[in-house]
């Protein structure tokens, strides 16, 4: 039986080989470098020649006075981004799906997708302008409505929310496209059947559209849980300042200052490994949850 399968399918397996080779070389090969996390790494002595220090790098990072604050910030910001990053595109995709005018639909889709291509360097400058408490657009609007101006980028309380909202604004168009694609794959016959049964638009959405895209929602939600320790280096790095270190400093910016600017590779790798381990844990758990409760398997 197996031999028979092999006889017909071997060309397909052969075609897989280059891909497997690339994964092995670029994804599994560098994993040897994880050893750096447990070493006092000296470049010239190499990965195998450097002094083995066990968990010293991890202990050092944990002994830093700000590590827990930074860890909390990272999770807080990343978690909010995850939740909002799921909700907003779904709602937006559903709404956009109801738009009948194709021209309108396409242009809105493109417009919300555009900010995705701007870098945070540029957006950082723009945000400082529009969020300025004295001359910014947002605060002027707030003032005309009778509120006091808020220093969004200089106030430790507001800063994380600014990060979340601006990140969603920049990225939701991209996710929206994924959901729109999923929506088009729903069989139109189901809508017709629902309409004949007397379902209005809202009921159609609840009972046809949403169940239709549940697999893709589960998939993206599960994958995004792996991002639990990625709060967005580019964004934070371009927007934060000493006034908001308290709530805005994240793991990546800490590692950047400690590890890369000062060439402390051991420590930087240790934090990287820690992040990967936590991500793996979260993905595994969410995968199990998806299977257990939604009876859905990605792999």
């Amino acid at each position, binding site marked *: 039986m197996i031999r028979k399968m092999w006889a017909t399918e071997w060309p397909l397996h052969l075609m897989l080989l280059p891909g497997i080779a690339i994964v092995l070389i670029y994804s599994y090969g560098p994993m040897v470098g994880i050893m750096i996390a447990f070493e006092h790494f000296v470049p*010239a*002595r190499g990965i195998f020649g450097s002094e083995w220090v066990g968990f010293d790098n991890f202990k050092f990072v944990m002994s830093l006075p700000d590590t827990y604050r930074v860890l909390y910030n990272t999770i807080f910001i990343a978690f909010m981004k995850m939740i909002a990053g799921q909700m907003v595109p779904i709602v937006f995709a559903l709404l956009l799906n109801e738009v009948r005018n194709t021209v309108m639909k396409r242009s809105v889709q493109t417009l919300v997708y555009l900010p995705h291509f701007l870098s945070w360097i540029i957006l950082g400058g723009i945000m400082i302008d529009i969020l300025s408490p*004295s001359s910014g657009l947002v605060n002027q609007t707030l003032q005309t409505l009778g509120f006091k101006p808020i220093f969004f980028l200089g106030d430790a309380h507001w800063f994380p929310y600014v990060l979340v909202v601006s990140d969603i604004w920049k990225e939701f168009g991209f996710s929206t496209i994924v959901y729109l694609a999923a929506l088009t794959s729903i069989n139109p016959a189901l809508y017709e059947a629902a309409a004949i049964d007397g379902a209005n638009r809202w009921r159609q959405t609840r009972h046809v559209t949403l169940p239709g895209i549940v697999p893709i929602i589960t998939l993206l939600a599960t994958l995004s849980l792996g991002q639990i320790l990625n709060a967005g280096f580019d964004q934070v790095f371009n927007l934060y*300042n*000493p006034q908001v*270190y308290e709530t805005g400093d994240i793991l990546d910016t800490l590692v950047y*200052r*400690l590890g890369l600017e000062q*060439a402390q590779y051991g420590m930087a790798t240790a934090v990287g490994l820690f992040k990967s381990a936590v991500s793996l844990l979260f993905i595994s758990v969410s995968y199990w949850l998806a299977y257990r409760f939604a009876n859905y398997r990605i792999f």
Partner: protein
Amino acid sequence: MNRQNRNKVAVVMIAAALLLSACGKGNDSAAGNVSAASGKPAQTSQDPKAKFEPPIDFTIAGTTEPNLAFDKGESFTNNTVYDAYVKDLGISIKPEWMVDPKQYPEKVRLSIVSGEIPDLMKVTAADLQQLVDNNLLADLTDVYDKYATPETKKFMSTDGGNQLASAKFDGKLMAIPSTNAPYNAAEFLWVRKDWMKKLNLPEPKTMQDVLKISEAFTNQDPDGNGKKDSFGFAAQKEIFNMVYGFTGIFNGYHAYPGAWIKDSSGKLVYGSVQPEIKNALKTLQDMYKAGQIDPEFFVKDHTKETELVAGNKIGMAFGPFFLGSWPLSAAVVKNNTVTQDWETYPLASFDDKPASTQVGLGVDGYYVVSKKSKHPEAAIKILNKWIEVDNTTDKQVGKPYHFSKTNQEYWKLNPIIVVPQDLNVKTGAVLSKAVETKDPTLVKDDLAGSSLYDDSMKFLKGDTGSWSSWMKAKPHGTLEIMNQYLKENRYMFDEFSGAPTATMAMKKPILDQKEQELFTKIITNKAPVDDFDAFVKDWNSLGGEQITKEVNDWYAKK
């Protein structure tokens, strides 16, 4: 100043300084002092200047300078500057790799990790230490001794040998310092003179005067638009940046943040944790509370803050000698008119002891030669050549190494660039007098000086594009003050010039961040000034004490 700031500043400084010296040669109206006869030495028999026959290949690490334009058919790997090195020295320069300047430090570190470095590359002090530790570098002691010309040796130790000494490890010369004038980091007080006149204010001779001016600029509507919308001081989020930073205020209270200074017992101590800092913080906090500083300064960089200057909202600023070229000129010179009248002053002090301006070693990086290089002496020959062509008044000699046929700024392509250690400060001794008396002979042997002199004359004839040169060259301009600082012994040198020590590399970034966070909070009145005392305690217990010990060990060995 933290490392990042210092690097940024260094880049800007060298760019400004080079531009200055390079412009001199491109300028066709030099001060009638061309002596072509003495220009070109052609003693090819003499050993240091001998050509390689046949030409050798010499690999370098390249940066793809984004603002560099090329003549048709030329590129980063094939251009007239590289041709000149082949023609004059028999050295064929081959970039082993080329990256954008922003990625350069990272790429250098990668190449150190891989152990594969080109024959010649420019690195930071920290990288140099790593390269030495990892034994990847050629010992240049002998080749420098043998191949450096007397002019080169003199040039490299104008400062008494401090910069060259910083490249020595156990007495061995392991790199060529990218020399620069440490005095170029001097800070000056820039003031709107038109506002001062309008409000009848005295010149800022003391810190008290400065504070009074700042108060008046804020409250007495100096721009006359009927709104209270002006600030005493420009400021930006990097509070110790050279441009719009507050270092000038700190220095006025004899506090030297970020620098290692000698205390009364001769030991080195860290400037940021000395009690004098508190006075400066208090003053800045008061100024912030009184609305004399842009309340949003801590989210803005200097580009953003310059928008305020351009909008006539800033009355004073601290900045280096090149502040007039960048970023101020963009805000001041509009439509060929100088719209704001700025004047420069030496830093003011709060007591009767004059304020010193804090400066570093002035080295902008190190040129290292790979241990595997077959011809380490080629680096010294390139160095000889650059010093020769960059310091001659003979345009025929200088041009091939500085400009393309269509006058593009090819000097950026030279693999080794060093700047005179007394650039500008020496010029400052005579330049303002030359400008005042309109006597070009005073600066005829000085490249930077004669070019600034020419620019100033152009400015007086109405060429507003030369405003920034005028600010340097005019009586009481920045270069004169720079020289005045030197004469009055008002430079405070950072005594530590080694690579980061072990604890420093691990803990200094954390301490720097704490410092920046607290200082900014104190200035913006989010924390009381007395929090500084707790910070000093934390600083010591979080590694500062150990760092101080290591720095003093280094100092004892020096």
